[in-house]
């Protein structure tokens, strides 16, 4: 890219100024808002935290009955239908251990496991028709496998190409197919 001329530069700076929103007043923001420093988490962290939480909730419910299970309404704030029923105080007087048993039974048998981000992932394929083998280089039909690099290939011309690949490249091809070796 050629270095910008001064006139060009000025126009560009003006454009930048018009696009930049850092100095625009934002009256809709709470001036006292201080975000947490460590609020950015990646998917893996979020999932592992969520599953740990689920497991611990299950354990406490199973052992102590710390939460108050109910058949119609739960008022702990995580399960609230749109209409929001009033808390049923009479529940508290029922026998806790019976309620815990009931709840556990319901959790395991009646509705099956709860729907979470992880368990709605579709299962691996079992249909052999979808396991067709394709050439790793060209994407064409790949009936052969090179025993040395484990690459699938279409014909002898592609095989020649495979054998001429530099070190490490076959691994990249395997990676595109998710068949590479991961060293841990």
């Amino acid at each position: 890219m050629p270095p910008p001329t001064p006139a060009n530069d000025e126009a560009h700076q003006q454009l930048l100024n018009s696009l930049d929103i850092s100095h625009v007043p934002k009256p809709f923001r709470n001036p006292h808002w201080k975000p947490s420093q460590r609020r950015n988490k990646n998917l893996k962290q979020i999932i592992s935290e969520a599953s740990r939480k689920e497991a611990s909730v299950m354990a406490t419910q199973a052992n102590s009955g710390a939460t108050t299970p109910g058949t119609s309404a739960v008022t702990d704030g995580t399960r609230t239908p749109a209409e929001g029923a009033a808390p049923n105080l009479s529940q508290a007087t029922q026998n806790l251990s019976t309620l815990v048993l009931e709840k556990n039974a319901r959790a395991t048998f009646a509705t099956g496991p709860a729907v979470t981000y992880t368990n709605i992932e579709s299962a691996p394929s079992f249909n052999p028709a979808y396991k067709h083998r394709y050439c790793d280089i060209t994407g064409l039909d790949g009936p052969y496998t090179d025993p040395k690099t484990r690459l699938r290939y279409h014909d002898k011309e592609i095989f020649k190409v495979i054998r001429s690949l530099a070190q490490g490249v076959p691994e990249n091809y395997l990676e595109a197919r998710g068949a590479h070796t991961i060293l841990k």
Partner: protein
Amino acid sequence: MTITSVQTLLPGRIAANANEQRTEKPPPQLHTVQDFPFKGYHPPQPEGWQQSQAHPDTSAIVIDNGSHLVKAGWSFDKNPRFAIPPVMSRYRDRKLNRQCQFIGYDAYVDATTRGQLRNGFDPGSSVVGNWDVMEGVLDYLFLKLGVEGANGGVGRPILMTEPIANMPYSRKMMNEILFECYSAPSVAYGIDSLFSYRYNGGTDGLIVDSSHTSTHIIPVLNSKPMFSNTSRLNWGGLQSAEYLMKLMKLKYPTFPTRLTDAHMEELVHNHCYVSQDYDRELNGFLDWSGLEDRDRVIQYPFTEHIIQEKTEEELARIAERKKESGRRLQEQAAKMRLEKLVKKEQELEYWKDLQQTLANETKKEVRRILEAEDLKDEAALERLIRELEKSIKRSRNKDLGIEETEEQPEEMTFPLLDIPDDQLDEAGLKEKRHQRLMKSNVDARLRAKEEKEREKARVEEEERIDRETRENDFETWISKRRNNRQAILQRIKDRDRFTADLGNRKSLASQMRMKTLANLASDGPKKRRRGGDEDDFGANDDDWGVYRTVAVGEASDDEEEEDLNGMLDAVEKELLEYDPEFSESHTLAAQSDWKKSLVHAFLRGPWPFDPESQREAHQLHLNVERIRVPEVVFKPSIAGVDQAGLIEMAADIINQRYTNPADQARLLKDVFLTGGNTLFTGFDERFRQEVRGFLPIDALLNVRKASDPVFDAWKGAAQWASGGDFARSSVTRQEYLEKGSEYLKEHDLGNATW
């Protein structure tokens, strides 16, 4: 399962006619990619805010929080006012010494901002990973929507979309931002694909939502989503672009320009399509006929190395100058030759004079004069004069341009050789020795000549025999030639393999070489082979061959290479002449022609490739990739995703999870496609055709596509936000403060709590 289609097996491309004429193709149509998606300055649109002043409690800000585009507008709008990618570029400008912040397309404005680009979503997922970016995006949207706000809040209800089975943490953070940073009076969440379905008037059916980061299948009965039977495939438009990037980097490992994700996305959008019959189309994809239409050429910007084009005049001048200098040189040479000639003539004169004077002198005087001239005797003087005469004659001829005739050397006589030594005096003996030397010289020349003639006769004889065998026993002759050709080909192959193997440290060839080297280098006491005790290296000429096996590099087998190719040419020429089954297309040159090469078709399409051309070096060719990339959603194993494909997922949900035929029929009656990844040409036809494949023959199947697979989710959300359900399903600020940040109200278009 019923058989619903019959496939005929087509012969593979290998069986294609070897003699097929591969004609030249017209020059390719070039496609370009946009450098970066900067879209210029967008002014804010405050009129929406003005309009919302009338009903501040029901006019909601609707945000479809997509990982590809965040769409935003008012609930009374027909279309979203803004759609931006959820990216932010924030940095401190050192020159101006202040913080800069660019959002969405604006972040692509120049190289600095692009360098600081951050994405709001966790890579490859529909989950927000960077909340600073999310905040920036919301700031930008509220600014552009003209939100004036009051008391540090947006003052309008907010409706936002979230992924299916959103994580509690994500919702918690979003709630925190919306309620605490923007002080929203109320917030509702919903699922984008359900909004899209509602907008398109669906109540019972199967939603197939293939979007930027994931593909979902959601059964809906009585307008209620069946989350427990929902399935997700972790593949969408983003993964397609990433996959294409991987393929392109492998296909063109030395591509001179940087390939960006935005380029790949554009290529996927503009050039990829869903094949109706993948395996069949795939196998013919690189066939010569029609390849120019299937192969898309993407031209990247380049600068051609300018070769100084010289004008006619300049060329003429240069030629003239060259000729001039040549002439000058010639003149100089001629002058020098003339000078030499004159000198030689003078010398000749002098010697001739001397000879004449000698004739009249006494013997003693003669010897004295000769000695003074450094000559042995009169014979020497005579030889000298003869030599000079000859050379003068030769140079005269040359000057006059007379062709030098190979003059027969006069018959030499060696009379002295037959005379015994004792009959000669000292001078005679000397002369005899000289004559013997001359004689052996002449004899050797004669012998060489004879040898040459014999060789010629031998070759002629061989040719004659060869011709005879060809005429009398053609079969043997031709098979011999063919075998010969095969052997040469094999040798060429072996040679290539050998050189290739030497590059590989672990190959047998290089290990043998290392062994030889080690043997040569070790000079300590070696185990001698039985018998020989002393070093007899070199006794056999073949011993020196060891150095040839050790040497690596081009110099070592240069001669042989020339030889092999020459031999092959000769054999192929003969075969071409006499073998009726051997045609031009069988020669090695034709076999290795780029038009025959599958790899060439794959890399460069049906056009020749000039490695010098910068233009062609900056070209990407999309061919197989055009159907290979969108195919992954049907066959995830292609890209190594260990999940069932779209069709298998749909089949599983319909056939396995709904046993009631009535439910199945209701789902099949309305299969609804939405999301940006369904925009590929042929997606719905392929889906319809393949789903048909696992259904009973009389099943009613209706597949339809959203009227706008990208924006319908927002439109549906805006529509819903204008209705009564919205207020009932919103969490108010009061409820948030009371019940915590993970509190959610369930409704038909949103996630459920569990």
